[in-house]
């Protein structure tokens, strides 16, 4: 482990992986808060206020985790990938700066009013502040996903000397993969937040079965999840077809398809064998691969061999993709069955509450898996066809990267444990006590 590029990737990956968990939760949780706040405004039911305050605390804590890990990222662009900014800074820079300008200040300032201003501002200002924070988190996602999509499927740029610059900003922002990625990520956030709400409410109900606020947030979360989960299945399929068109090597690796094939089977599970270019212990469904990817049994799908040597590794993509899809299916099952079991004010059986609690972080794990697929799937490129990852790394030595990686790892581990302890503690106490 003294390869600087690998260490730079490990460090950046650790950081961005840790960071993304919190926006993935807060983007949609902010909209739940808008819902709770508006419900209180309309009904004047104190229980909605208690619910709002509880989840506002969860939001504030998660937001703080996101802010501090996000600041780290703004520095690591320069420390880990200096040539990224040298080469494509004229495109990536403005997108990142627009995120800071349009979203970060908005979120941070109005979060202060949300948290501490309820007795100091008129009701409508407080409702609008909640709305601004939610709008800010979504706007932030817009810019960062525009940049990521441009790195995946770049359009609208021209080479000027040694730098890539934007020829057409609309094309840079609205690249072919952007609408799919944006929709997929927003729904992923919706599912992440729903399952955190469902899971923690269930955790509370296991301790206090009569907590009406918890029963109500449980139902609200289940309803949102039951609507979003199947939509996500459809959006994910469309995103996959879009990837097949623009980044076919990624799809080949995700499906562990080594050789270009007609009548491609769908590999359900296997152990991809890089050395021998085949799958061991594969369980497959005949024709299903062609059917899903080409919507025809005869459709030809290009295999990994067609893209050598510029293709991502197979095993991580293959497994991460299956974790994501598997969890997606589980979320559909849980949210549908849960909605049915709690219909018309019925209370969920204890075993189901345990299942919900166990699934609290299913959205997180699925989102992280999805990002692993799309980011590792872009390798060996940092910006597809424009800049290779190894050419973007800087002069930071293995020793510097190694020691700071250890430093970050310890900090993140400590923060994560503390976060989890507090989160479960707050949820266990409930909204009204």
């Amino acid at each position, binding site marked *: 482990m003294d390869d600087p590029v690998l260490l730079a990737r490990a460090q950046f990956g650790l950081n961005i992986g840790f960071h993304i968990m919190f926006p993935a939760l807060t983007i949609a949780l902010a909209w739940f808060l808008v819902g709770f706040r508006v419900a209180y405004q309309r009904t004047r039911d104190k229980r909605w206020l208690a619910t709002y305050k509880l989840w506002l605390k969860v939001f504030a804590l998660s937001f703080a985790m996101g802010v501090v890990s996000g600041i780290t990222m703004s520095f690591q662009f320069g420390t880990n990938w200096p040539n990224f900014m040298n080469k494509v800074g004229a495109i990536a820079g403005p997108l*990142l700066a627009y995120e800071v300008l*349009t979203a970060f200040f908005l979120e941070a*300032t109005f979060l202060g009013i949300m948290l501490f201003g309820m007795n100091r501002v008129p009701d409508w200002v407080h409702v609008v502040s909640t709305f601004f924070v939610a709008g800010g988190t979504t706007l932030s996602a817009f810019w960062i996903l525009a940049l990521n999509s441009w790195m995946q499927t770049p359009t609208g740029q021209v080479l000027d000397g040694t730098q890539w610059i934007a020829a057409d900003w609309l094309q840079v922002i609205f690249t072919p993969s952007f609408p799919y990625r944006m929709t997929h990520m927003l729904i992923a956030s919706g599912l992440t937040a729903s399952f955190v709400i469902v899971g923690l409410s269930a955790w509370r109900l296991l301790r206090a079965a009569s907590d009406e606020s918890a029963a109500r947030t449980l139902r609200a979360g289940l309803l949102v999840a039951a609507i979003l989960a199947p939509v996500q299945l459809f959006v994910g399929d469309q995103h996959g077809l879009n990837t097949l068109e623009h980044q076919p090597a990624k799809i080949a690796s995700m499906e562990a398809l080594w050789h270009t094939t007609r009548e491609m089977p769908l590999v359900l599970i296997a152990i991809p064998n890089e050395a021998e270019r085949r799958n061991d212990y594969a369980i497959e469904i005949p024709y299903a691969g062609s059917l899903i990817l080409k919507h025809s049994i005869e459709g030809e799908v290009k295999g990994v061999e067609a893209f050598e040597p510029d293709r991502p590794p197979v095993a991580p993509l293959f497994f991460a993709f299956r974790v994501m899809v598997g969890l997606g299916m589980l979320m559909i099952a849980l949210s549908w069955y849960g909605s049915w079991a709690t219909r018309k004010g019925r209370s969920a059986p204890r075993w189901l509450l345990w299942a919900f609690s166990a699934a609290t972080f299913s959205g997180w794990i699925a989102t992280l898996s999805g990002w692993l697929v799309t980011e590792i799937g872009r390798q060996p490129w940092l910006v597809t066809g424009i800049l290779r990852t190894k050419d973007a790394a800087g002069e930071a030595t293995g020793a510097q990267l190694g020691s700071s990686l250890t430093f970050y790892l310890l900090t993140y581990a400590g*923060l994560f444990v503390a976060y989890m302890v507090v989160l479960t503690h707050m949820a266990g106490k409930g909204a009204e006590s």
Partner: protein
Amino acid sequence: MNEILPLVFFVVMGIAVLAYVVLDGYDLGVGMLMPAATEDEQSIMVASIGPFWDANETWLVLGVGVLLSAFPHAHGIVLGALYMPVVAMLVGLMLRGVAFELRMKAHGWHRGLWNWLFWVGSFSASFFQGTMLGYYITGFESGVGYFLFSLMVGASLCGGYVLLGATWLIYKTEGALRAKALAWARWGLLWVALGVALVSLATPAVSATVREKWFDFPRTLWLMLLPAATVAIGARLWFLTRALEKSNAGRDLMPYGLAVAIFTLAFLGLAYSLYPYVVIDRMTIWQAATHPSGLKVLFIGAVIVLPFIVGYTILSYRIFGGKVRERLYD
């Protein structure tokens, strides 16, 4: 236009950094002062920065964001050379931010632990920001002398933040805590005076470029207005804190204003020392700037959005203006 825009963004970056220093400076300073207060006072101190610290920290992101997006060629050099202090500072900021949230939800020895981490985070973030500045001014030279110089700047910046934190508390608090803050402010002021004097003397000694810019008669005479004004404001602040011990005539915001003025003057001196370099002796503003097409897009965004940011920041400070009386979270 292509000549002016890099300069415009150099100014924008400067303003963002100065805004960061005087705003996050006071909440980091309050964090450093925590161990000197009683448990009750600590709650008030934390409440005085609660609505603001998050947005204050965002100015750092804007400063680094402008460095990253407008001067990408310098971003890698600067942050690469400052690698380890940057990591240490970031870990400090992380501990501070998270400890702030968690200490409010903790009880017993847990709260003690988070209080301690809040202090450690505030202190190390401040100290390492100072060492970053120290290395930056000297053009990232290595050697024992430069190392000691950067430690000195680190310690001085801690003093500066303590001054900002103490003057902020004069504005936000009452009674015994305000009286303590007045004394803390004088300690901070002495510390800053010592730090600024040492740094001002040492900088020309370690950097020939800076020496030539300041010791060039007759320009030197005009430039001496800057330290003279700093000394005058420092003296005014000292006597004001004495006077405020006896009276409470609605002048409690003034010490913070004077502290900001001291920082602004020091900042102007620094900017003069550096100009036209982004990386001293190595890279000018124009060499570091991104492609003009990128700058134009940034400029449009900044012109449209920055007034809104300033507007709602002022709104937030108005909403949460005056003395702190309530605790956080009801």
